[in-house]
């Protein structure tokens, strides 16, 4: 230290010479752009008129920018926490397993993929159609394992027909039925190819002691048939449960046969007929990942997939320097594994966890690529974040670089506190 100060005093020009290249680079690439952005944020779209703080007022009054700000808050709270938490779990668990290195490699691998590529991958993962999107393929598989699929998911009554759709998805015939008169229960909208194996529908037998009827697809292929009549080529809908309901109670039930007919015992006389909903439940289509409600959590999921590996590697490095003796001592004192983890490992890892969290926070504030790529344009507004809004405001059509610069300044202001925390910590650690 002493000699350094001597040099500065003796030859200031030499010091200046050595510092100059770094200062020029820093000035040209960092200081000047920041200064220019701040200046630009005080001018209007054309850059000619000074507008003071109007651009900042615009930021806080414009709905889409406010939405972006709110999303950024969600991001900065959720994404680093979840990524660090997962990283911690992975790091602690991999300490114990034999294939630790292989496991770490796999978890870390997404870091090697660019944000753009990861965005494209997850755009596909979150596709609505279970045949294309992995996320929904998993959801539907799990769902269908537990609840099974229905036989005629597409069958529906005509909007002006005798049957009406109930809230629970069943179809009700309002008119009470009488024994001895065959009932017609027409449904439509079953795709023609699904009917290729079905048998032709038959008119039910007339039996004074029974309530009989037919459930069928009331549409002749080619469109020749009449509504509400069993035309010769119309197909039967088999396996549908027909319930007779009186005062809300099911008094009798039967399934339709291969020719679409059913017969209920005499108790059904005077009751209402209802087609049970389990035959018509639309197939579960998975979650609407890319819709307005789930889009932000979905993109955060993609981010966590990428960055928990990063957190894991840093934490694992910190874990390696945790003194074994302390852990052993705790165990000898009778602490169980959970207590060791809670009371010893996590506190000792505190500084590392802090570094990881802060790094991820800074990283999350400037998140752009994933949001830009994953969100389809119809829900882009719901997924909006500041960095994306900055881009859209500055470079889209009808660009206003004044507002864009104002957003950039706002982002800078948001990063500064996190930076200060980081610098303080660094200084403290250097002193130690």
């Amino acid at each position, binding site marked *: 230290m002493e000699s350094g100060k001597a040099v500065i005093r003796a030859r200031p020009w030499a010091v200046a010479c050595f510092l100059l290249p770094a200062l020029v680079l820093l000035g040209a690439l960092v200081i000047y752009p920041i200064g220019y952005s701040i200046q630009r944020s005080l001018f209007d779209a054309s850059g000619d008129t000074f507008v003071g703080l109007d651009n900042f007022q615009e930021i806080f009054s414009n709905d*889409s920018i406010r939405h972006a700000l709110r999303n950024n808050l969600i991001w900065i709270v959720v994404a680093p926490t979840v990524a660090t938490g997962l990283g911690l779990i992975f790091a602690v668990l991999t300490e114990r397993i034999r294939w630790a290195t292989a496991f770490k490699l796999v978890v870390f691998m997404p870091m090697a993929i660019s944000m753009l590529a990861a965005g494209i991958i997850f755009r596909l993962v979150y596709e*609505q159609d279970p045949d294309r999107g992995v996320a929904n393929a998993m959801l539907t598989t799990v769902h269908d394992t537990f609840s099974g699929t229905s036989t005629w998911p*597409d069958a*529906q009554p*005509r909007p002006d027909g005798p049957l009406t759709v109930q809230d629970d998805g069943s179809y009700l015939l309002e008119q009470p039925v009488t024994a001895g008169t065959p009932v017609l229960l027409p449904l*439509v*909208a*079953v*795709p*023609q*190819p*699904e*009917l290729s194996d079905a048998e032709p529908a038959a008119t039910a037998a007339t039996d004074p002691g029974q309530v009989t009827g037919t459930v069928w*697809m*009331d*549409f*002749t*292929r*080619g*469109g*020749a048939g009449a509504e509400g009549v069993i035309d010769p080529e119309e197909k039967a809908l088999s396996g549908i449960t027909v319930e007779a309901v009186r005062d809300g109670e099911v008094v009798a039930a039967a399934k339709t046969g291969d020719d679409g007919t059913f017969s209920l015992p005499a108790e059904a006389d005077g009751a209402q007929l209802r087609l049970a909903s389990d035959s018509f439940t639309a197939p579960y289509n998975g979650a*609407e990942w*890319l*819709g307005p409600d789930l889009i932000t959590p979905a993109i955060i999921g993609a981010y966590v997939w990428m960055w928990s590996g990063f957190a894991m590697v840093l934490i694992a490095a910190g874990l390696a320097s945790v003194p074994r003796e302390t852990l052993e001592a705790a165990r000898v004192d009778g602490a169980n594994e959970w207590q060791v983890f809670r009371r010893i490992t996590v506190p000792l890892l505190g500084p590392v966890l802090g570094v990881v969290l802060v790094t991820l926070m800074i990283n999350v504030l400037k998140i752009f690529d994933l949001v830009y790529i994953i969100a*389809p*344009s*119809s*829900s*882009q*507004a719901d997924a909006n974040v500041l960095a994306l809004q900055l881009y*859209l405001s500055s470079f*889209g*059509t*009808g660009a206003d670089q004044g507002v864009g610069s104002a957003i950039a300044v706002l982002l800078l202001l948001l990063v500064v506190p996190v930076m200060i925390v980081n610098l303080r910590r660094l200084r403290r650690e250097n002193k130690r």
Partner: protein
Amino acid sequence: MRGSGRDSRRRAFRAAAAVTVTAALTLTACGGDEDTGGQRSGEVTVELPDLSGQHLEVAAVWTGAEQENFLRVLDEFEARTGATTSYVPSGDNVSQFVGTKIAGGSPPDVVMVPQPGVLREFAENGWIAPVGDLVQEQLDRNYTQGWQDLGAADGVQYGVYVKAANKSLIWYSTAAFDYAGVQPPETWDDFVDTAWTLWESGTTPMSVGGADGWTLTDWFENIYLSESGGEMYDRLAAHEIPWTDQSVTDALTTLGQLFGEDRLMEGGADGALQTLFPDSVTQTFLDLDSPDAAMVFEADFVGANITDSTDAVIGEDAQVFPFPSVDGGPLPVVSAGDAAVAIAPDGEASEAQEALLAFLASSDAAEIWAEPGGFISPNKSMNMDAYPNDVQRGIAEALIEAGDDFRFDLSDQTPAAFGGTTGQGMWQGLQNFLRNPEDIQGAQEYLESQAADAYGD
């Protein structure tokens, strides 16, 4: 520049040539598959100067098959004039591309501009040169006044619309129509009935690519044009009437008969909002036996998507009918297209640029271009036999027969911030409407506030 005597001599020669060509084409009609090179030497409808040693750079948005087809036209130009040409894809934002190139001092010689608004902007900047006599002559012979005016700014002719798109088409799966036993409808009411019959027969009637806002603007434009007429359409495009006008309410109410019924759209409104335009085509034609949807609405370029990503054969599995007329109005014809302009920051087009524009405006070029398919020309005097199949020919004929009763895509005429930007303006306004079709008033108020911002009043 050119002596008028020489001009009239040329005109006389060309008139004679035109007669000969008509005769020749009648004889050789349908022989269109032969290579173009020397075959057409006797069928010249445009006299081109000798341009040996000159080079022209042409820029357009086309890539892939569209680029290949256009290169055939350039090859013929090279063969006839001795000039050399090169082609540069410009990317989607033509105005940015040209602006950068001019700033850099090496602009392309001829550029294809898709929007009339951008063409006017170029003219105001003084980037493009007015057309000369040679081009004007081709324009007068082959183009209606309406198509000429689209390439003009402030009464000066700058460009030639060489490629057109007919945006008033509904493509349908013949299998689905067979299942339901329905015929292509001619009026909107028929169309809605047909949709319900298709639904009863078990096929979802419509596939709507609502994730791309521009498909929704085309829906609106067709309905508005047929229901309220061309005059109102022009006034709305110029924002002389507000978007809160009753005519807009009527159009949205009509559109709501479709958008308000989840059963009529594949995936319902929510599914439609996540469907990109190419997916809206593939889900209609991918599975030929049980299509996900029976009909999909969009321009003739749907044909390219069908050919590229499905096994459907246009004319057999995939057919097309014109957008139905609404409320007893005429059949709407909404079009789009690309105009060729000569870039000349010094205000004067070179002989080679003139020659290329004239050639592109000629029937010869249109016929060569039409042969491989995927191209519709606004050229009214070209031989329709040049189109490769009946579907393409039908689309082209519908466009030509409309004469000047067509309207250019409304959203392309508005400022880009209103008519062409994701997440705002007309795109977002109509997506909001699709998400919530009950709220017509809310949609109109949003559109009007966005329009007021974009037009700057």
